């Protein structure tokens, strides 16, 4: 069956940003050595924290499970090298901008001995899709594009929807980041292997590997690998280089011309999107029994002497790998985990590389932020917004804290890509303002929900008390009636029985 072709849908707006990728792609991927210590946060994914299953002092082998998935949305963590658990404690993490979070700390013995494999890996084709998904779950695989959503759960959800497209996201559209580019250049076969596994797991008959036009080397090596593989079910698609076409929903729109509904998922329009690095990690796990214990990370920026891509063990402190990139330059002033548009700035390089760490960007001091000026409603922000929002109107309503208008203007649809910030001549930090407005909106919704709960509690308590009251009144009435029917003799009997002798019958007693 030949794969159908689609017109490239048009993404609204977006920016052609300078790639800044040449520096970090000049050298091959470097293998980072085993560090002295590995710091493994128990939350490296979207969802519930993994539960540690090792104790302090316990010896570990590479690939051993150290924290298991907890609950329906979670992902396990494995030991990236052999050594000993020395602590389970709070440590600075990038997810919290350098604030601390619970981590398992392993002192490596340097031997890097892998766990004995109980079985040689079965070929994935012999597994039923369900069993394959369960296996992927155990590998600790999460989306490596940066969102770190547990992959198995994403695929399980996808199997419940009618699917038409599997898209492999090789659109690394943010400046500076080149880890996926390098992975595709050097390990295209791994990525394609993962793609085939994904197709089997999802029961799909074709898939699209989507790569941006500014990555000719990656396109070339994928093309070669595809020729070797000769699998007609996989199509390579080239898309124009426009930020933010690598966002999941944007990619779906770009390739299929379908809009992911507001608040919905790509599966609502028949699509599943997986990052190319996630596919490669799935291949490593299913075909080579290696769980997700390492990843490719770009170290770059004008604060880095020799930008490079490295393959590092998850848990390696960033301070340990900066040396591989020639160390900091004198201008190093700011560290960003991720890209310059959506990354997270961290306060310290003590934070470990985690599953989400695609790029360590060290920047020189930015030009002092010019003072925010009034919005002149030039509309450039609306021209570049990929969601076709009107940031200038959202900004007004955000200033006025007008929740109704914010909703009407689609604040919750904002993907925080940062395009509007870049074109604003008044230096208004729009993305930050929108982030805050969203948080505020959430707060209001929570408050409302809390108030609603309290109201329900109060009302049900009132109801209960009313009920109790009527029940008691009815009981008393019934007793009274029973007493009247039974007559005075019965009352005396009762009084005697309860020992209340002091109570004399009244003078008007008929007897």
């Amino acid at each position, binding site marked *: 069956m030949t794969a159908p072709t689609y017109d490239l849908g048009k993404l609204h707006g977006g920016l052609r940003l300078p790639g800044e990728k040449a520096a970090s792609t000049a050298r091959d991927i470097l293998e980072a050595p085993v560090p002295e210590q590995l710091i493994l946060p128990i939350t490296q994914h979207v969802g519930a924290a993994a539960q540690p299953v090792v104790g302090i002092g316990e010896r570990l082998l590479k690939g051993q499970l150290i924290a298991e998935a907890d609950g329906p949305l979670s992902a396990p963590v494995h030991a990236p090298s052999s050594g000993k658990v020395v602590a389970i404690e709070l440590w600075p993490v990038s997810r919290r901008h350098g604030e601390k979070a619970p981590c398992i700390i392993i002192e490596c013995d340097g031997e890097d001995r892998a766990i004995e494999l109980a079985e040689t890996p079965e070929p994935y084709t012999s597994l039923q899709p369900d069993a394959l998904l369960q296996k992927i779950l155990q590998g600790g695989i999460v989306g490596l594009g940066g969102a770190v959503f547990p992959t198995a759960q994403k695929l399980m959800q996808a199997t419940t929807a009618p699917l038409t497209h599997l898209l492999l996201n090789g659109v690394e559209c943010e400046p500076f980041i080149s880890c996926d580019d390098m992975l595709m250049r050097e390990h295209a076969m791994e990525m394609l292997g993962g793609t085939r596994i994904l197709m089997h797991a999802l029961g799909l008959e074709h898939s699209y590997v989507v790569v941006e036009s500014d990555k000719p080397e990656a396109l070339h090596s994928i093309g070669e690998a595809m020729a070797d593989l000769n699998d007609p079910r996989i199509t390579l698609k080239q898309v124009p280089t426009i930020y933010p076409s690598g966002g999941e929903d944007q990619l779906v729109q770009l390739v299929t011309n379908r809009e992911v509904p507001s608040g919905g998922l790509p599966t609502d329009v028949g699509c599943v999107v997986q990052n190319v690095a996630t596919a490669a990690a799935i291949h490593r796990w299913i075909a080579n029994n290696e769980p997700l214990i390492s990843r490719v990370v770009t170290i770059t920026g004008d604060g880095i002497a020799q930008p490079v891509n490295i393959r590092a063990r998850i848990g390696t402190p960033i301070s340990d790998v900066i040396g591989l990139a020639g160390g900091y330059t004198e201008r190093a002033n700011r560290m960003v985990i991720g890209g310059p548009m959506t990354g997270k700035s961290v306060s310290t390089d003590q934070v470990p590389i985690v599953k989400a760490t695609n790029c360590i960007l060290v920047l020189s001091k930015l030009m002092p932020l010019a003072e925010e000026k*009034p919005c002149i409603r030039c509309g450039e922000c609306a021209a570049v917004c990929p969601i076709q929002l009107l940031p200038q109107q959202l900004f007004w309503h955000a200033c006025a804290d007008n929740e109704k208008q914010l909703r*009407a203007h689609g604040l919750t649809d904002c993907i925080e890509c*940062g395009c509007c910030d870049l074109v604003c001549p*008044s230096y208004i930090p729009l993305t930050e303002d929108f982030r805050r407005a969203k948080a505020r909106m959430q707060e209001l919704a929570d408050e409302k929900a809390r108030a609603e709960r309290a109201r329900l509690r109060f009302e049900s308590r009132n109801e209960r008390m009313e009920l109790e009251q009527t029940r008691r009144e009815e009981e008393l009435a019934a007793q009274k009636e029973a007493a009247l029917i039974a007559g005075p003799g019965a009352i005396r009997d009762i009084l005697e029985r309860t020992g209340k002798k002091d109570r004399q019958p009244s003078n008007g007693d008929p007897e």
Partner: protein
Amino acid sequence: MEFERRDAPFVTPSTDVASIMRQVLYALIPAAIAYVWYFGSGFVFNLIVAAIFCAAGEATMLHLRGKAFEPALADYSAMVTAALLAFAMPALTPWWVTATAALFGIVVAKHLYGGLGFNIFNPAMAGYVVALVAFPLHMNLWTAPRMGDIDYQFLTIYETARYTLTGSLPDYLSFDAISRATPLDIVKAGLNSMHTFDELSIYPMMGDFGGRGWEWIGNFTAIGGAWLLLRKIIRWQIPFGVLMGLLVPSGLLYFLGTGVHASPGFYLFSGGTILCAFFIATDPVSAATSPKGRLIYGFGIGFLIYAIRRWGSYADGVAFAVLLMNMATPAIDYLTRPHIVGHPKKIRSTKHD
């Protein structure tokens, strides 16, 4: 190593308000040269007066409102207002007329509404209209352009300066000797008194398309406007809307062939049409904000200009057209919100049910 923290994005914007406003000023240079060539040095004096009073008004209001001087004065927005006013004023205008327009524009239309970004009305046009109403005599005194007719009088720089400062002409000249009905006046009056447009076209004040001189000022203004479009300082929707709003109705009526309507080219190249399309209507603060909204906004201005010129009581209608559409802006913005990606498309079947 420890680092500073900040929120994404970590890229500095490449444009700023001051550079936008500066480029708008640069783009007005060709038009200014043409204006001075055709109408003399009065434009320069008007510009100086407008600039002084706009800056003074801005500084005073910033002081009264307790705002910092430097960022607001350095954004050149008051200078753009001054420049637009200088273009709108007749070449010979006494300083108090220009000063009234400048102060009203900056103090009332701009700052009393909250300053840059919050003004509902275009400050230059608001100021112009106030001057037009307050000083009808001075505001309707237009001199003949160079080559306008054979006996035109061209004031020297000294005489122009003197007039600007005192409002009095040299003894040997009278208002009647130097003032001429503008082409728009001629056509309006002529058409209203049952002349055909062809009959009116032979007047010496009339040029090849529009008014003599005016049409070349229009051309030079359009050069600056095209440059702004290329630089993406302005987008095409508003200029296109204005021109269409003017050309469509005037063209339709003209090509009916009854002879009682002026040609669309005449309206295009007379008065402030081109300046309005590229420089006045495109003031982003008081304009509609979505692309579709801007088309409607521009079209409304163009149509109103035509309506006022053809059926209204003012010869040119630019200022009134702009102010009227400024009032409609919030409604236009509300009604033309673009489709948000991922939201259901509007169902438009109810009309035919």
